């Protein structure tokens, strides 16, 4: 088996719902075995539909899905080497934890002693041995989540699909489960494909993030790549903490391109054709805030509306000619910078920190 065939491959996948609603358009993706991939996007972006097609709960209108070289189109969910952890867990309310977890094996015809032994091992793995005889409604949200995981793990799938797995949990529990899920995935070494609309969750868990928007893949990359180098405005805005400038390319300067924007000239690494529209993004934590004079390029005069103390940093809500602008400075500067609330300050950044966005 060649490298190109192993793992999960989506090739030219489209999903069009009746009424010509394009839910998923031209998706191409290769997930390696053992990878933790997170599909990230706002609701209605096609991420859940993509997950359902991978799991076999929906069929592509065109394109192919293969797992380790085997075509999955039209194969029933149960026949795929993949199982889904459904949103809200979908546990069987009338069955005990043990019966829930043993269900998949029971359906495979594994005899009772054997399936209970395996189920107990899986329950042990998620740390619920003491809760084995309880009904799902007697468990907390986090515990239900773990039962749902154990229930799919016991069938030894090649990959697990998780639909908003942390959506039902409160924030503290979410943080805890992020770490637990990630540790479990590393321990098991199986592919996890996880769908969420929470960029923080995606950044903290994924080996690779697939950002979806308007039914297409906007960008695929490691958390670092996405945070530092969003490819286009959609990704920049969705990943948060990015300031975007639009303007017209006015010329080049060495390896850089100069864009004329309503807020002044900006210079950024890359190339462009003069006269064409150009956009760039600058991350909030790369913006320097000072009382220095506004530089000719890559600097704007802004008004500091509000300094928001975040514990490890200070988020500055700035006003750039009536539009919101964002900067993040170290926590130590809080007292100093608060004195400037309501006053004009200078925001500037280095050429290499900004980056050109695709149009």
């Amino acid at each position: 088996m060649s490298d190109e065939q192993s793992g999960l491959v989506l090739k030219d996948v489209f999903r069009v719902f009746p009424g010509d609603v394009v839910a998923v358009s031209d998706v191409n993706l290769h997930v390696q075995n053992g990878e933790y991939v997170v599909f990230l996007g706002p609701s209605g972006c096609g991420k859940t539909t993509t997950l359902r097609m991978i799991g076999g709960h929906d069929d592509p209108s065109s394109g192919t899905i293969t797992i380790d070289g085997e075509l999955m189109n039209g194969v029933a969910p149960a026949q795929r080497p993949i199982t889904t952890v459904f949103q809200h867990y979908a546990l069987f309310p009338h069955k005990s934890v043990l019966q829930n977890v043993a269900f998949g094996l029971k359906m495979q015809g594994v005899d009772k002693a054997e399936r209970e032994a395996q189920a107990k091992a899986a329950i042990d793995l998620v740390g619920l041995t003491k809760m084995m005889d309880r009904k799902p409604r007697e468990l907390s949200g986090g515990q239900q989540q773990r039962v749902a995981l154990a229930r799919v793990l016991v069938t030894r799938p090649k990959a697990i699909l998780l639909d908003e797995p942390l959506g039902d949990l409160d924030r503290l529990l979410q943080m805890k489960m992020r770490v637990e899920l990630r540790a479990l995935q590393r321990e098991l070494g199986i592919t996890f494909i996880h769908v969420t609309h929470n960029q923080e969750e995606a950044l903290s868990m994924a080996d690779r993030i697939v950002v979806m928007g308007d039914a297409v893949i906007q960008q695929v990359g490691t958390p670092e790549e996405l945070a530092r180098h969003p490819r286009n405005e959609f990704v920049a805005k969705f990943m948060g903490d990015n300031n975007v400038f639009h303007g017209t390319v006015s010329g080049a300067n060495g390896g850089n391109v100069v864009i004329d924007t309503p807020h002044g000239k900006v210079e950024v690494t890359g190339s462009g054709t003069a006269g064409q529209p150009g956009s760039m993004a600058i991350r909030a934590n790369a913006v320097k805030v000072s009382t220095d004079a506004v530089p000719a390029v890559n600097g704007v005069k802004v008004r500091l509306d509000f300094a928001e103390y975040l514990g490890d940093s200070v988020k500055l809500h700035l006003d750039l000619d009536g539009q919101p602008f964002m900067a993040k400075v170290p926590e130590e500067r809080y007292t100093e910078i608060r004195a400037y609330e309501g006053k004009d300050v200078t925001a500037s950044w280095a050429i290499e920190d900004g980056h050109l966005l695709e149009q």
Partner: protein
Amino acid sequence: MSSDDAKHAALEEAKREVEEAESLTGGSAVAVHATTGPRRTPLVTLAWVAPGTIWLLLFLIAPLVMIVLVSVWQKTPVGFEPFAFTTEGYTKLFQTPVYLDTLKDTIIRALVVTGLCILIGYPIAYFLARGVKSIRYQIALFVFVLAPFWVAYVVRIVAWLPVLGRQGVINYFLVEVIGVRAEPIDALLYSNFAIILALVQLYVLFMVTPIFFQLATLDNSAIEAARDLGATPAKVFREVILPLSLPGVLIGCIFVFVLVMGEFATVRLIGGGTIQSVGTLVYDYYKLPDLPTAAAGATILVAVMTIGVAILLRFSKIREVV
């Protein structure tokens, strides 16, 4: 108070009501979250509970107490002598073999009708709830299923007479049209068969409705999860859908069992006076007039119904499912 505050308060109120309901009914083991917000004063609670309580006291408890009292009062030629306690009514009943036989027949009839209602009602409810995809058709068909209820109770019973009678549709068809029989079948009407047929037709809806609602509100993702884990359609039904629909079946059983146990008009009309139920017997004693014996018969009937419902609840563990 802003509208957001009002919403918040309403939400808290709703949460607390659920919690109170849970604690009243024995509660589930789910951790109950403490809620903030003002506690309701006892007076307000009383105001909420009062209408239902008064209704139950006036129209359920009071008549029941009355019946039990009359059942132990002394019979007189015109009625009864209050506060003259005697067990004459009960003794009379238990010494009449007809009464005990009728009680037995009534119980058996109620069980048979309940069983038939499950057999006929479950598939109808299943089809309506899970076979019909469009909500609009679902509602339309459900209203259609309810159609017999648009017709008065007695009319629905009487409607069977021209169907089952000696010169009725079925006999006419058998004798005149296809000629498989020389003589009409008398047993079609005024028989246990006819009564059970009419009772099932009358009460099957009380089975269909709770099962329908149970199935319609069933968590689809649990079914999807079962399929995902390799369950065949038969296994999905057996392992997930059926157990989760049992509360609906149980409620249907209680409805049908209790209603058929108390049946009187159907048995009288379709049974033609030859077949009795406890209901018709009580009515006969009432007409004599022997009110204490009638009341004793009714008391025993209520006791049997209560025991029947208790058994159903005991063996179904309804609270564990829902």
